[in-house]
């Protein structure tokens, strides 16, 4: 009886977090696509050296980051996956979103500061341990994108 009540509550929380979580996810992907399309013409590359022919007038460090966390439903799936092993599909959209968001924030910042391109882009991921459960839980994941923003004398 008690087990059934507990199961019922768990199922309800799973349903609600699934619905809300996927709505938020869908909206975020839409926003990402729109903003990416707007910034498509802005070059971001992992080259360490400047492409030949570029004349730099000014440069600076560009950075963008975001901390994201999983909804309960996806964490539940990931928990089960931890028993069976294999591909943790429920994490992929989250990390993809977070990484694109970090890249976009970096680029948007550079655009706002009047830069023309970002070279030597680097991406970092780090897990923020939760204070609960002796640091074993995950509070969130931070994505950091950084690179060297350059202003060009002459457009490439």
């Amino acid at each position, binding site marked *: 009886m008690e087990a059934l009540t507990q199961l019922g509550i768990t199922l309800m929380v799973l349903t609600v977090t699934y619905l809300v979580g996927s709505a938020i996810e869908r909206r975020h992907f839409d926003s990402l696509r729109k903003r990416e399309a707007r910034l498509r013409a802005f070059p971001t590359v992992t*080259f360490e050296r400047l492409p030949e022919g570029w004349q730099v007038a000014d440069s600076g460090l560009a950075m963008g980051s975001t901390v994201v966390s999983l909804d309960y439903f996806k*964490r539940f799936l990931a928990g089960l996956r931890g028993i069976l092993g*294999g591909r*943790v599909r429920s994490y992929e959209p989250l990390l993809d979103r977070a990484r694109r968001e970090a890249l976009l924030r970096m680029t948007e910042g550079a655009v706002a500061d009047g830069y023309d391109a970002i070279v030597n882009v680097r991406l970092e991921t780090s897990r923020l341990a939760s204070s609960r459960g002796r640091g074993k839980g995950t509070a969130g994941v931070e994505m950091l994108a950084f690179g060297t923003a350059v202003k060009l004398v002459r457009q490439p």
Partner: protein
Amino acid sequence: MPILMSNTETIPGKTIVEFYGVVSGNTVRAKHVGRDIMAGFKNLVGGELAAYTELLSDSRKEAVARMLEQAESMNANAVVNVRFATSSVAQGAAELFAYGTAVRVQ
């Protein structure tokens, strides 16, 4: 023709004629409990955790494959300056991530 890859500025012996932007590939993997327990035993004596080596290298291959798929969808024929990042995104789950710049070389 397969897409070329390097972790240097260019593909040796070729010149970049066009570049398209950053491409990336990821995969998140969890190990199953059986492997965990075996690794626990192995940890007592040390040495290579062969099962983990295999799991991680398989996953990394998949991350690379996804990165190449992105490059292919951009009609690139090479990815240069490739970087890898491995991070533990949750207890028992690791993300293997690869990224680079999609280019056309000649």
